[in-house]
């Protein structure tokens, strides 16, 4: 009996794995994940219902939703068409009765249809990505110098000018809310300690949220006497500008409003007379108690002798309490976002999102991996900047698709 030969552990592990791991590129597969497809189908059904509803009478909420769904529907139709033609062509090729000339033609067509299907599934996936909840809002850009001393401050001022130029070119209204220079004056072109730029345009947040992160600069600073290249960093924060009136403070009937309370979710307790009531007793109890069942918020009012007045006051109090809770929750989200964008530890040169290199006259975005060489145009906020931002946005979408698919898979399990 010969003993089994000794095999090292790492070799064993290698044997247990497949020889070639399949490399999956999500964006270019022609097949779309079944979970996403099911989602698209359910959206299509809802779209149809909404269309029927709108045919009977106008409803602004339904109309808005319909507008949100229409790209999905269009993409789904395209995908269906492409899918059908591919399957038809495939069956034609595999059919033994087809004459060879036709088969050749079909094979040619199949290539084109395949690429169409790939495009269609790509656009369907991207259209399924939920729009960022704050994307439609105006935004605030906060620029602060990070590592690199006064050179970072100078570059911060350069970046501010870059974004101002960008807004000017795109006709966005940009207001400087706050700006401080290191020596206390407010002249431009000199080192900056903090600047907040408000961009008051619809969709500004969706447009600019890709700018958030650490921007790295590599150049010979003007303050450098020996001609060495320095690397400095500037942090850029992009926050949605949530104004009170954007959310419809006073509109109690609008379900989107913070102040909206569904009357069905509220239990009303009126302290009724003990005993027989009516003419038999003479009660002075006018207390009203409201309980918001989902959040278990209780409001009890007994100030006034008039029950309707108490009730009105109790509703007002309940509304403002719930609105306060909702606003706090939203602010927490904003704070979490702020932390995730630039944590205290993430202010260094390493965690950069973009590099501006003067020596090579290039700008590289590290997320999308795009490099452009027209540095001057970028620094003026020209069209080259647009190109970079576009690439980052598509990178963000790719990321979103990945999480969407992961979520779908998790939901299935």
């Amino acid at each position, binding site marked *: 009996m010969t003993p089994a030969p000794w095999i090292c552990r790492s070799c064993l592990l290698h044997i247990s794995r497949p020889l070639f791991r399949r490399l999956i590129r999500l964006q270019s597969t022609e097949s779309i994940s079944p979970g996403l497809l099911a989602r698209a189908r359910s959206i299509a059904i809802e779209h149809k219902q909404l269309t029927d509803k709108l045919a009977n009478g106008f409803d602004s909420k339904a109309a808005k939703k319909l507008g949100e769904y229409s790209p999905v529907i269009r993409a789904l139709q395209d995908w269906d068409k492409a899918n059908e033609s591919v399957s038809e062509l495939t069956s034609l090729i595999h059919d033994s009765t087809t004459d060879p000339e036709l088969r050749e033609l079909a094979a040619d067509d199949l290539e084109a249809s395949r690429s169409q299907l790939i495009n269609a599934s790509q656009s369907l996936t991207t259209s399924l990505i939920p729009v960022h909840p704050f994307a439609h809002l105006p935004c605030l850009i906060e620029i602060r110098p990070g590592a690199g001393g006064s050179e970072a401050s100078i570059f911060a001022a350069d970046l501010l000018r870059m974004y101002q130029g960008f807004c000017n070119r795109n006709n966005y209204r940009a207001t400087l809310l706050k700006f401080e220079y290191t020596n206390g004056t407010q002249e431009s072109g000199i080192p900056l300690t903090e600047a907040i730029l408000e961009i008051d345009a619809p969709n500004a947040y969706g447009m600019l949220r890709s700018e958030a992160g650490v921007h790295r600069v590599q150049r010979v600073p003007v303050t450098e006497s020996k001609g060495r290249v320095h690397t400095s960093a500037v942090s850029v924060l992009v926050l949605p500008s949530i104004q009170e009136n954007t959310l419809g403070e006073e509109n109690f009937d609008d379900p989107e409003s913070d102040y909206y309370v569904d009357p069905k979710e509220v239990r009303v307790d009126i302290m009724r007379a003990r005993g027989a*009531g*009516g*003419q*038999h*007793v*003479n*009660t*002075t109890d006018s207390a009203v108690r409201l309980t918001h069942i989902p959040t278990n918020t209780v409001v009890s009012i007994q100030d006034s*002798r008039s*029950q309707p007045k108490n009730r009105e006051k109790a509703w007002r109090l309940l509304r403002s309490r719930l609105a306060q809770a909702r606003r706090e929750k939203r602010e927490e989200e904003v704070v979490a976002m702020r932390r995730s964008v630039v944590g205290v530890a993430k202010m260094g040169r390493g965690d950069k999102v973009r590099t501006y290199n003067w020596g090579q006259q290039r700008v590289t975005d590290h997320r999308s991996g795009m490099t452009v060489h027209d540095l001057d145009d970028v620094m003026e906020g020209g069209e080259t900047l647009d190109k970079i931002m576009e690439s980052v946005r598509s990178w963000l979408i790719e990321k979103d698709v990945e999480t969407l698919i992961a979520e779908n898979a998790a939901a299935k399990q």
Partner: protein
Amino acid sequence: MPRLSPSLLRHARSLNPLLPALLRPCRTLSSAQNELRWLDEHAERIAQKYANGAEVLKCRFETKAWKCKVLRELVRKRGLGTPLQYLLGSEYFGDLEVFVRRGVLVPRCETAASTTHLARLLRRAENLPEELKLLDLCTGSGCIPLLFQHEMRRRQDVDVSCLGVDVEERALRLARYNLCKVGRGNVAGVDGDAVRFVRADVLRDIDAPDSLTRVLEKEGLGGKWDVLTANPPYVSLKAYWSSTALSVRHFEPRRALQAHNRPEMDGGDTFYPRILRTARLVDAQIVLLEVADLQQGLRVAGLARDSEFEVVIWRDVPDQDGEEVVGGIRVIGKGHGRSVVCWRGAGGRWLGVE
């Protein structure tokens, strides 16, 4: 009634020395504290009034000492059981503040709830007549016509005119005072000309000079009345001695609670046959009658069905969910059975039940 525990009384005394006296009628600390606050505000108002008078007369006046005195007196009276509304001189009836006086029944919140509910149903109704006429029997302080008028004010295309009827001169005086107070300056929006009050006896035979029909004819108010409401005396003899609160028995007029001097003859139902007969006479489309409880409600509903009305019973809070059928009659809302709503002809459409 359970005894107030000494610890509660001690605790109340530590909060405010006036509270223990108020605990006797109120029974709970929170409602005693509320009443003390309202009495305090009232005493402040009275003292301020006297202070203004004293200023005019240029004599010395210790506002604070006076206020303390007034408050102590008010608390003493309340402790003996006087209804708070008589002490403060007013009661909130729906959205209105109605004045009250000794000798006239204090309006109850259940009456306000059913009146408001009726007015809200009618406000939504279609094809109401251009002039909607409401006849209120046993009107007392005049609260029902005033509140109805106030609630219907938002309905621009309908002119509402109301007539309140009572047998007591005192009640009529108070009702007219209320009309003048509420209607004047249109603060609460009650149209003064559209509400009237007359004296008539609902229980009298038709031939008597002060019977309702005779009075209506004499005043030129005969003819059709679309809506008839009534909060008649309905407490039975047994209920008067068992479930009626002491402060009600001692301080509110017995005539407003019980039909006549010999209530042992019936269970508090004296008024309803007469009111329903009147309703047929004036061709009322909707009749709203307050009753003591569900049992009496069912009896009255039987009477109303005999005079060819459709009937539903509302509980204390008619606008809350809850519906059941008792003895073949729909009962809506939460609480005790409180009002019998009858309709015929166009009334069903107005109420939205058809």
